[in-house]
């Protein structure tokens, strides 16, 4: 592990109790945190140089009944990455916003609300971002079935008229 990254981890240990650390790679560390410790950790990491928010995303662990939120922070100084993950309840998916720390988070959160149905307290802009006139459950949840959806939304149609027969009449092959 790089020196500066282990220094950061040492600093974090002072703020956060029972830190669950997984070293994925030489320059990548995953931290699994309880909900209330995510914001202080993100803040500490941001102050320590990991100020580039690469991505906020979520994973649907349907068997556990949880959503896993993933924050990926990157440092331009040493190329280190921190993956901060936390699990929230799947039935009442709610978390706090980080839009005051990173402006772009507003859009990532809006996207997560649209695709997973996760609400972010403090972020009022939860209008749909990509999908238009969506009337089903959030599509990236594991129990959403695209095949069923498309069958319901676009049922097999039968042609009202026999178009080939009509074309033959127009072309003069048969008499109408």
């Amino acid at each position, binding site marked *: 592990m790089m020196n500066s990254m282990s220094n950061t981890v040492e600093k974090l240990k002072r703020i956060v109790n029972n830190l669950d650390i997984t070293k994925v790679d030489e320059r990548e560390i995953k931290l699994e945190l309880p909900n209330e410790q995510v914001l202080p950790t993100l803040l500490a990491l941001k102050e320590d140089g990991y100020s580039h928010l690469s991505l906020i995303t979520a994973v649907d662990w349907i068997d556990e009944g949880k959503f896993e939120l993933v924050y990926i922070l990157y440092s331009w100084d040493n190329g280190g990455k921190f993956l901060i993950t936390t699990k929230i309840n799947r039935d009442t998916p709610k978390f706090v916003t980080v839009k005051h720390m990173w*402006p772009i988070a507003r*859009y990532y959160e809006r996207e997560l609300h649209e695709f997973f149905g996760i609400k972010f307290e403090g972020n009022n802009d939860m209008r749909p971002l990509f999908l238009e006139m969506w009337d089903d459950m959030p*599509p990236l949840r594991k129990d959403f079935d695209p095949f069923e959806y498309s069958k319901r939304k676009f049922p097999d149609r039968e042609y009202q008229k026999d178009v080939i027969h009509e074309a033959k009449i127009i072309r003069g092959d048969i008499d109408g």
Partner: protein
Amino acid sequence: MGEVKLFFGPNHPGMHGNFSVHMYVEGDTVEKARPLPGFLHRGFEKLMERRLWYQNLALIPRICVPEPDINEACYAMAVEKIAKIDVPERAQWIRMIVLELARIASHLMSFPGIGGTIGLYTSSFWGVSDRDRILDIFESLTGARVYHMYIIPGGVRKDLTPKIQDLIFNTLNYIEERLGEYETLIFKNRIVHTRLKGIALLDKETALELGVTGVGLRATGVPYDIRKVDSYLFYDKVDFEVPTATEGDAYARVYLKYLEIYQSIKIIRQCLEKMPEGKINVPISEGNALRYRVPKGQAYVHIESTRGEYGYYMVSDGGEKPYRVAVRGASYPQTFIGIEKYLPGTRIEDVPIWLSTMDVCAPEVDR
């Protein structure tokens, strides 16, 4: 005169891809701008969850057309990271050559393409025809011109024969020669100077705060490049520079793209020289590759694309299909926050200049 609502895109000669900007305009000044994505959302992330690990290779290059190899490399590298596969050295060098060729092709579409938005059409025609020479290389190497499906988990699909190496060598010489002519056509042109200098300004602090990466950030004087900072493949073993500028305007960004082509050519030449003989891929599974299972785990892999930081966050539950794949589009910050914050105050005719020089790529944002 009152405020007028104006839709810029999804279909407009100055618009790049299927993307729309909803503008409120007073006179010819933009008062408020709202990005409106969703015109080509194809649900790639959900599609990937429903396909086998190997089937996805045919799907992902479709995410962003100018530089499809970035997606393949990210995907393959993430699988290798989760499954702890060691890729042969030769394959890694070939990957670098392919990625840099794709980079040149993408830049050749992008920086002369500015001519299309400001009325200097010759440059965009030149760019497209020169890019075709790179596509010829790809055709002889991979059998396909645009979507290559060449970089696979475990290595690459076919070897780089001496004949193709000659073709690459000759094409690079040709492109290098042509770049001088581009300099005369674009960067000594008064139209370009008048239309691009001092336009679409972005300063260093804001760029860092918004999370803008790539050329947009480097044009503000910050030499950040993932190839240097978080080096992957063998980028730490080749000698190249990261061109920067301090102006932070549209002209600086376009000029940086031009300079980056020289660096890419330099990298490819070194790769061709340093590339050892050997295997080009390792078998990743016994038996049928389609039934390949990636062990449990997750990884985030990011790569420097022409538009900035491009990343894949992948989760595997040990099954035949990815459990979750999240794509980080490189132009996400400049597309959403950038448009909302920076278009107000500019004139209507400068809107496509922001979108073009910031490399807003709709499909990687929409997915």
